């Protein structure tokens, strides 16, 4: 008792000190109460727990390691959340305190201020740990096989008002205008956005825009008006715009380039996805850039860091797009023989490249270009091929079953390849693959590996893009039937952009890693992830 009485007084003094220094989280009285209770507990269990504390310390270390490995990075790694740990934490932490206190008591007059500070720090940490343990008790224990919780992208949750509100708040914070949906949406697609081309987002921006870099504004306008279209073209344009952004970037004082630049890019990406939903290839490119930026070491000078980033981007474009195209062309040319009649759909930069390369190698073949309303992208492909001197035929997609008996091979481009083997491409591709299968014509899909995507999808409804419905309106024989479609309540126009082709329609996928069947896409993704 004498001991406890003696120890109490310096304890209370220390308590007051600690309360002054800490003071933010708990009120003084609460802190004092907590400490007094713990001290009593400690002294009662002191000797018993000394040995037990050593054992539990070891246990605590072991537990903390797997717990921190399993828990996602968002949770602080040192947070022990099992039932055992909280009891272990206050036990070892306070145990050294009374241990240090008792010699301190003995040598109290000889203690320096530094020693006192060290003691206080140790006690503060112990209190903090105990408080964390106390609050973390109600949390559930994490499993080793914690399921990966993927956040659903906002652009497929338009029918959820909560998500829309969150998006509006986020855009307001980033000072980007919100783009409004247009026209009557078909009920099957009420979970997707439908914008009008006549109301681009840039009209709602103030000029000059201080938040968004002008290169990004220009890019957004090009996307929403369809001036830059096609998976590769959009990715390359995006990367060039980001290069410009990086060149014009200066690190603000007291900020690190690796963190600040990533934060600067976030509103740009929001803006671009408002102009037109991001494609899978763009998503992969953005992930790559963000990774490269955050990997910049903090002691790197700004100029050097910028140079490094620019060269990384150039390297990405060269490797993943240009060299990949060359590799794919080389493999594809083996599949084209003299006298072939090749059917292509729409305008795929990769397929056009392959055909031009094959023509350079003096292979005799002719091409049938299939086109579809309302985009009529086949005209562009036709123009490019005819300029090279390739003999072409042009049909609309409704005539595919008429022309297919003449065809020997079908070459299709892809927007993305999904992890369950489905090919996501321009709407109409699955139709062509279906008819080709019915006529026993081989279907070859050409796709670079950077377009491979971890998503899975089985139909064209759950995730798609709705284009401007007014594009379907056309004048024939002097009459525009659908001109006033908005006035008719039960009439809707549907202008889909993408569709998914099941893997049983596709015979071969030609990638820069070689020729693979459609079902090997998850294997390639795994290999890529392991490499990175």
């Amino acid at each position, binding site marked *: 008792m004498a001991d406890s009485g003696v120890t109490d007084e310096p304890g209370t003094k220390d308590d007051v000190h600690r309360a002054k220094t800490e003071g933010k989280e708990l009120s003084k009285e609460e802190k004092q109460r907590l400490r007094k209770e713990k001290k009593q507990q400690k002294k009662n269990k002191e000797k018993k727990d000394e040995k037990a504390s050593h054992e539990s310390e070891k246990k605590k270390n072991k537990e903390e390691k797997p717990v921190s490995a399993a828990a996602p990075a968002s949770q602080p790694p040192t947070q022990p959340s099992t039932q055992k740990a909280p009891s272990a934490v206050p036990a070892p932490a306070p145990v050294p305190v009374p241990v240090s206190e008792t010699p301190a008591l003995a040598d109290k007059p000889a203690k320096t201020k530094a020693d006192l500070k060290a003691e206080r720090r140790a006690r503060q940490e112990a209190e903090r740990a105990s408080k964390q343990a106390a609050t973390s008790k109600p949390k559930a224990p994490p499993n080793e096989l914690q399921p990966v919780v993927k956040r659903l992208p906002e652009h497929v949750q338009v029918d959820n008002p909560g998500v829309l509100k969150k998006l509006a708040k986020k855009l307001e914070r980033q000072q980007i205008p919100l783009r409004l949906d247009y026209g009557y949406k078909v009920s099957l697609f009420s979970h997707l956005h439908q914008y009008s081309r006549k109301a681009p987002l840039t009209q709602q921006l103030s000029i000059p825009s201080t938040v968004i870099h002008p290169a990004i504004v220009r890019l957004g306008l090009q996307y929403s008006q369809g001036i830059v279209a096609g998976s590769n073209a959009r990715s390359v344009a995006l990367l060039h715009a980001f290069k410009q952004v990086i060149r014009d970037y200066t690190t603000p004082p007291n900020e690190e380039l690796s963190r600040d630049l990533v934060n600067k890019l976030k509103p740009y990406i929001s803006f671009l996805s408002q102009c037109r939903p991001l494609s899978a290839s763009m998503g992969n490119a953005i992930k790559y850039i963000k990774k490269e930026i955050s990997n910049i070491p903090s002691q790197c000078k700004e100029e050097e860091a910028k140079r490094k980033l620019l060269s990384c981007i150039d390297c990405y474009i060269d490797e993943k797009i240009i060299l990949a195209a060359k590799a794919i062309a080389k493999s594809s040319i083996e599949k084209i023989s003299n006298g072939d009649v090749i059917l292509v759909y729409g305008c795929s930069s990769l397929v056009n490249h392959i055909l031009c390369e094959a023509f350079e190698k003096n292979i005799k073949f002719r091409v049938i270009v299939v086109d579809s309303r309302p985009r009529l992208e086949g005209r562009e492909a036709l123009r490019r091929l005819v300029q090279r001197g390739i003999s072409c035929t042009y049909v609309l997609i409704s005539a595919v079953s008429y022309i297919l008996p003449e065809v020997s091979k079908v070459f299709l481009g892809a927007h993305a390849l999904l992890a369950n083997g489905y090919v996501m491409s321009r709407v109409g591709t699955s139709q062509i693959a279906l008819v080709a299968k019915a006529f026993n014509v081989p279907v070859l899909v050409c796709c670079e590996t950077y377009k491979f995507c971890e998503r899975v999808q089985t139909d064209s409804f759950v995730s798609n893009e709705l284009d401007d419905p007014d594009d379907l309106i*056309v004048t024939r024989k002097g009459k525009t039937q659908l001109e006033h479609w908005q006035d008719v309540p039960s*009439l809707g126009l549907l202008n889909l952009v993408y569709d998914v082709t099941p893997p049983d329609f596709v015979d071969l996928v030609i990638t820069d890693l070689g020729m693979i069947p459609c079902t090997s896409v998850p294997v390639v993704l795994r290999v890529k992830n392991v490499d990175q």
Partner: protein
Amino acid sequence: MPGPDKETDLTERIEAFLSDLKRGGSGTGPLRGSAETARETTALLRRITAQARWSSAGDLMEIIRKEGRRITAAQPSETTVGNMIRRVLKIVREEYARSRGSSEETDQQESLHKLLTSGGLSEENFRQHFATLKANVIEAINELLTELEGTTDNIAMQALEHIHSNEVIMTIGRSRTVEAFLKDAARKRKFHVIVAECAPFCQGHEMATSLSKAGIETTVIADAAIFAVMSRVNKVIIGTQTVLANGGLRAVNGTHTLALAAKHHSTPLIVCAPMFKLSPQVGRLSSLNSQFTICISGEILSKVNVHCPVFDYVPPELITLFISNIGGHAPSYIYRLMSELYHPEDHEL
């Protein structure tokens, strides 16, 4: 004299009809529905029967065949004309046989037994003259005309047997028969219709506006999206230009793709076709190419072949059901109906 006037009047009418057909079929696709063409053809044939000079059934059949060949040559794609001519020829044969007193059944069927026992084809030269033949033939043609008047309604009356509520029905292009069919069902049931626009003429737009004005929930899609939306479709109901003898179809461009997509998703494909569209021709027909304007710039247009077929052939395996004015049939039954409508000797005009 009334004779020559009548004749000139008749030739004038035939010429007018021919020029109408030619104009209607060239370039921009048929301007009027097949039902109208069928009715006008039948009316014209009645006039020929009434006004032309003939003494026996054989003469009449010769005249009809001659005019028929001219008319079909003017517009080969319009098969209803040929079908009506064959129907009238069959009517003439029937009336002749009835006037002669022999039963119709045994005369028309060339059975193996008959071939072996009678020792050769019975020569039927239709040379006998019957006074009442003209009146009988005209009466029969009138009956045919009334039948033609009611075909669309007969088909539309069957709509409720095939459409239940909350269905999603897909169709392509514009068919007056299907339009009437769907509108009739919409009076009692609520369902959703998806119309494929059928480029390049985009007849689907007209169909969609007409259906939506009747209060049916309609969606217009591009041809390219047919397979993409097919997984949510419960039935495909289409019209056709011609039904072939093997149960196949000759329908508007894009129908074959639609049929393949429906087969892939095991969606029933229902064809609404009145009986006058049945044609004795079999198998793939050479498709017509029509001119249409697409925005290819002039310089490459000369180096490019452009194809724009008007019709598609759909094989009978892809079709589930035919709905005609006399009820529903499987594609395998069509050949039997054909033999009831036309005489085998008339298959080639």
